[in-house]
């Protein structure tokens, strides 16, 4: 727990107190927050599956959907606690307002839940830890790209429409607002479309999640 709190600070602190452009700093923070969630969810799930622990829980009658939802909620909460000091360092380093920090709290909750859900999804389709790490990284980075994390947003384009639905969009927007408190580029996005997208990922995870607890289903 302490190590997981300190490691992100090693990356966040020098960037927050540097002259790095806000867009670059926000993109780095968004990648860190997202991968923290996807890897933290995916790899332990795959390991528990490989050890037979999830199979045992399945045989004991634990519902795969309920189990995954509880586990994702728990790991997302832990991630939020472990990343809170990093968020505070960014806010202090960039002189952000308390309202920006509050917006980050809401969007980070949503983003970390989505990241952990994505981790559970990739764990269910991966056949090894290495595969899980690859799937988690590729899917998270793709969704971050589609969220407009790595390029400027152009209103009125189809890309801008897609961005609005991406689950990591609010997180990136809040981090941008935190990294560039004086600019207007970090306008907060609407939460409803990303929440709908998260329900979509939830449905997909529910469908494939049974395979984690019933290894015989991976056929």
């Amino acid at each position, binding site marked *: 727990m302490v190590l997981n709190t300190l490691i992100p600070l090693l990356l966040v602190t020098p960037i927050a107190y540097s002259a790095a452009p806000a867009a670059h700093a926000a993109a780095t923070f968004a990648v860190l927050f997202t991968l923290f969630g996807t890897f933290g969810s995916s790899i332990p799930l795959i390991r528990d599956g490989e050890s037979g622990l999830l199979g045992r829980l399945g*045989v004991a009658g634990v519902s795969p959907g309920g189990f995954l939802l509880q586990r994702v909620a728990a790991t997302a909460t832990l991630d939020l606690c472990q990343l809170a000091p990093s968020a505070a360092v960014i806010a202090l380093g960039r002189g952000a307002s308390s309202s920006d920090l509050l917006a980050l709290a809401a969007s980070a909750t949503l983003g970390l839940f989505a990241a952990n859900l994505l981790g559970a999804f990739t764990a269910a389709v991966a056949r090894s830890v290495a595969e899980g790490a690859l799937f988690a990284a590729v899917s998270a980075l793709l969704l971050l790209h589609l969220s407009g994390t790595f390029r400027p947003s152009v209103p009125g384009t189809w890309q801008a429409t897609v961005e609005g639905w991406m689950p990591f969009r609010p997180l990136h927007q809040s981090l941008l607002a935190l990294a560039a408190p004086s600019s207007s580029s970090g306008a907060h996005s609407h939460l409803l479309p990303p929440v709908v997208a998260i329900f979509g990922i939830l449905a997909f995870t529910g469908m494939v999640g049974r395979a984690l607890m019933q290894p015989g289903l991976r056929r």
Partner: protein
Amino acid sequence: MFEVAGLSYTYSSGRAGLANVSLQAGPGERVVIMGPNGSGKSTLLRLVSTELPAPRGTLRLFESGWDSTSRRLASRRLRGRLGVVQDQAVHFDELTGMENGLFFAELYGVGEPEAEPRLAALFSNFGLEAVRDVEVGEYSYGMRKKLLLAEALVHDPELLILDEPTLGLDPPSQAAFLEILEDRSACGTCSLIATNEPGLARRVATNVVFLSKGEVVAQGAPEELLEGFGGKTTIEVSVTGHTADTIAVEGATVMAQQGRIVAESEMGTEILPDLTIAILATGLEILRIDVREPDLADLFTTLTGLHIADSRADSSVRGEDG
């Protein structure tokens, strides 16, 4: 209690796991499955425990309960009537033995006030009292296996499904396990056990099923199977030195080796007086005599040509190991 009829299962690789297996057992019965690695023992147990998805054929659990043809997921309530010991003794390593026990008891619907004394008694039976509050990460394999047994028994299941239950247990724990198994059977608990220990099978089984390459080769009460088999008794005599003389005993095949003489006979120990006289006549001194009666493993070898503990019999891909 459970019934399987024409049960077949094919692995994702296309290899047949089980082919047209039929067997059944009622309350209090103990069915022992024997067969070499890859024969389908674990697959059969995983199907009956509802871990694997619905196969071809029928699997019916409990009289008015689940049936594989319905394609319904086995409910938590139904799984709560099963006590399963899988081949992997896996637990939450960061929790203590007692915490693990309480966790699984809770999953099976037994609350802490009821589960704690039951677990304490089971820990006592298996010699785990001293480590009940130690993290399972520090347990040896045998201790993990005993904890697994305690967790499978804590909720008084109606059907016990046990994969190699005595593997890794020390003799006192084996004895405790057998006592518990017999007590539970007397109360109506049905057991389905996979083991390759002929002694254990003969002691506990009301019905033995021989599996080879996914098919049932023979099944019946152990005494009936052995009675029909006949088989040869092996007498091994440890002696001083070696003789070049031929030792001939009527009704037996005798082989002389350095330091020992081995005789095989279908006449059991009847040949023993003649054998000892013949050995002493060569001038050798007898140090020790060991007699081994034919057992279920010998019967299996006679029926299939395979040795029951022969791991070369088939592929044993992880997760598909029979």
